Structure formats: structure tokens, C-alpha cells
């Protein structure tokens, strides 16, 4: 666990160079989702990839910087910088805990990420904007309340509906990208090496399973 708190060691040159790219990926992902008229944000793919490759602190910085950049054109998104940073830290911590290696773990990681972001969205929306903003999920919440649902229930449910598809697709794309990166490149990143080690271990296992006779004769 002590490795988790070694903030300065996380910011290697490779990690630092990755941050601007990840912020740009967030921007491009968000605008591509808009261009393809998808009903999702998909503006945190870069943050997730960085968090998986370089750990929670670099992931947090990436999320924060991304929203800071968005705020230049839309100042109302400034408070969400805190949310993006915290989600980055959560993803990075999960990655360090080897939670993105197998499909079972990936699914539970998605669950944790959705839970954390729903909680943060609801709390922050209440703290900064009194519970209502102009976002789609907030308007859904307002509609639910007219239908007679209690305030918090409507807030949580509307956020869950918008967060589940968004975070699921984001995690899946991030995992797909990580799996496509060569082992040689993965090894250059702090947390990325976890994925590389897993990959080589699995390959060795497969090899051993494929050639049991050869393995038996060498013993």
C-alpha cells in the first residue's frame, strides 16, 4: 500500500508526457460523441487510460486538467473538475489493485466506478447548484419529481441511468486500448506493467498447457 502514496514517483517523464495526450483524447472523444450524435458524454476515455497506465495521481491530475480546459468554453463545468479528478483517482487505484485484468473484475470495477460517480454527481449537484442544472440527467430528475418521486430518489435514479452506459463504454474502450498496446510500451508505465506482467504470465501458462509433454520431458 505504501506504493499507492508515493505521489512523486508516479510522475515519471513518460507519465507526464501522457497527460496532455490524455486530455486531448478526452476532448476529442467528447466532440466525436457529439459529432456522431451519440447520447453519451464519452469525455473521460483519456483519463481512464492514463489512470490505468500511470496510477491514481496522474489519473486525477488528467481528469482535473480536462475539465479545467472545458471550462474555458463552458465555465459552468468548472465544479465538475473535482468529480473528474476523483474518478481518475478511483480508476487508478482499481488498476493498481489489478481490478482490470479479468472480465469478472472489470465488471465489478465498472460497478464501483458507476457507484462513486453517481454519488459524487448527486452530492456535487446539490452542493454547487442546489440539485438542478441544465444537463439531461438533471432534467430527467425534474421530470421524475413531477411524477411524484421523492427528491433524492429521483436524483440518484436519473444519474444511474446516464452513468451506467457512459462509464461502461468508457471502461471497455480503455481496456481495449490497453490490451492493444504492446508489452514493450506497457512496461514503460508504472501501473501499465501490471497489465504486461499479467499478459506474459498468461502466455506462459498457455504455452505450458499447450505443450505438456515437452514440459514433462524437461523435468
Amino acid at each position: 500500500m505504501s506504493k499507492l502514496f508515493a505521489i512523486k514517483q508516479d510522475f515519471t517523464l513518460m507519465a507526464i508526457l501522457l497527460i496532455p495526450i490524455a486530455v486531448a483524447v478526452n476532448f476529442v472523444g467528447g466532440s466525436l460523441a457529439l459529432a456522431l450524435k451519440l447520447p453519451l458524454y464519452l469525455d473521460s476515455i483519456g483519463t481512464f487510460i492514463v489512470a490505468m497506465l500511470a496510477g491514481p495521481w496522474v489519473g486525477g491530475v488528467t481528469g482535473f486538467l480536462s475539465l479545467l480546459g472545458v471550462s474555458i468554453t463552458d465555465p459552468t463545468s468548472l465544479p465538475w473538475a473535482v468529480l473528474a479528478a476523483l474518478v481518475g483517482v478511483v480508476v487508478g487505484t482499481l488498476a493498481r489493485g489489478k481490478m482490470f485484468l479479468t472480465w469478472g473484475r472489470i465488471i465489478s470495477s465498472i460497478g464501483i466506478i458507476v457507484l462513486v460517480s453517481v454519488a459524487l454527481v448527486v452530492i456535487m449537484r446539490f452542493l454547487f447548484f442546489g440539485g438542478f442544472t441544465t444537463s439531461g440527467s438533471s432534467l430527467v430528475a425534474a421530470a421524475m419529481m413531477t411524477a411524484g418521486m421523492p427528491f433524492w430518489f429521483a436524483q440518484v435514479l436519473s444519474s444511474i441511468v446516464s452513468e451506467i452506459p457512459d462509464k461502461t463504454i468508457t471502461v471497455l474502450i480503455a481496456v481495449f486500448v490497453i490490451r492493444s498496446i504492446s508489452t514493450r510500451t506497457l512496461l514503460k508505465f508504472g501501473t501499465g506493467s501490471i497489465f504486461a506482467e499479467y499478459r506474459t504470465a498468461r502466455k506462459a501458462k498457455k504455452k505450458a498447457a499447450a505443450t505438456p509433454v515437452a514440459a514433462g520431458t524437461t523435468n
Partner: protein
Amino acid sequence: MSASAVSPARTSRGSYSDPRESPATEVLRTGNGVRDLNPATQLSLAGGLALTAVLFGPLCMVIVVTICLVLSALAGRARPFLTLFTRTILILGIAIVALQTFFVPGTTELFSWWLFTATAEGLAAGIQIASRVLGVGASVILLIQILNLDRLVLDMEQRGMSPRATYVITATVNIIPQMRKQMGVIMDAQKSRGVETDSNLWVRTQAFVPTIGPLILNSIMGVEEKALTLESRGFSATGTRTSLRYVEDRPRDKRLRVLIVCALVAIIGVRIVLWIL
């Protein structure tokens, strides 16, 4: 900027000498009084205004927004200030007031419309929250109008911040348009291979991955190359650095910052007194 390369006299690590001593250093100036304030002064100014708006009610918000508008006008940026303000913050503020009025339960009914009932309690809460959002938003927009990123980054470096941190900020700003262009190229390439980008929702979702995937992978592969390039130019080298550019921190900036801090202390004091009374 003079061509003769006389490196500025160095006093200690991380500090920069007076730019007037060296004809080779370029002083970053815009020629406008407000925009030429030291970035730290601009930041504390906007921070102070935002805090004032949060601490006090709607009346103070109006004053803060007016100050922000006047300062933007002095910086020659009144029009972009107003455009951004009305397009983002003002719309959100109006939405907050409307939604709170209709959805916060209360006993005093103002009027009823279709399914909705407006309450006085909701209206009061909405105005309170919206005034906070408007005040902070106006301060942020003021900062966006007067703060120059090059000057901010350079000033941070002059104040001893690590060049690694400032690189991240500058590189981010430079890399985004580059990535946008690359995405256009990839999108065209995928379209020519038959990936549909304007069909139904499911087809469009399927187009997302083959477009963003190669872009991300290409950029991550490029990181190593970038690292080598930067290292060969002494990016991680320790020791003193010489900058060809300089941001001024004039005595009037320092005086202004002291003034802002004093004003803030007074404002917080007044707030506490009002709370107690």
C-alpha cells in the same frame, strides 16, 4: 527583441534577473493595463470576487458581476465576456431559479401551472443558489478574458514551479488542435473503408471505436519518441535555466495583492459579524 545573446545575470536557482539588464529577454506584454497585471494578481482578483459572491447574497452578486464586466471592458474584452456569460452562466442561473421555484416543496404557493406549483420558498432558494453561481461564473469568465496562458505558465516557473508541471499545461493546449486534425484524417480513412458515420444509433456507436482507437494508440506510441526528443534537449537536466521570456511582477502588482487580501479579510470579518448578529 534584440538579437544579441547576452544571457541575463542570474542571482540564484529559479529566480530571474531584471529583464531590463538583458536586451535578449522578451518581456511578455500586451499593452493593456488589466491584461498586463501579473497573473498572480489576476488570479487573486478573480478569487476574491468569487469568494465575495459566495459569502453574500444576490445584491452583492450584482455588484461582483458589474465589477467583472467593467474590468473586462477595461481589458477590451467586454463583448466576449458578455457572449460567454449569457450563453453559459446566465442560462444556468435562470434554469436554477425556475427549477427550484417549481420543485422545492413549500407552504406558500405563488401560482400553479399545469402539473407544476411554484413556491415562494423555492424561489428564495433558487435566487440564493443562482446568485452564487452567477457571481463565481462571472469571476471565472473575467479570468478567462484577462489571463494569458503563456504569461501564467512563465510566471509559475519564475515563482519556482517545476518546468515539468508547466510543460503539461502548455503541451495540453498545443496538442488539442493537432489531435482534432488527426481525428479528421482517421475519420475520413475509416469512411473510405466503409465505416458508416451517419446511420442509425447502433451503427454510429460502432463507428466510435475504429475512429478513436487508432488515434489513442498512435499517440501513446508517440510518447516514447517525444520523451527521447525532450531528453536530448535537456528536459530533465538539473541546474539553473535561462528563459528568453519574462513576466513582470511590478510593485503595483504587489500593492494590489496586499489590497485584495486586506479587502478579503475585511469582507470575511463583516460576514462573520453579520452571522453572529
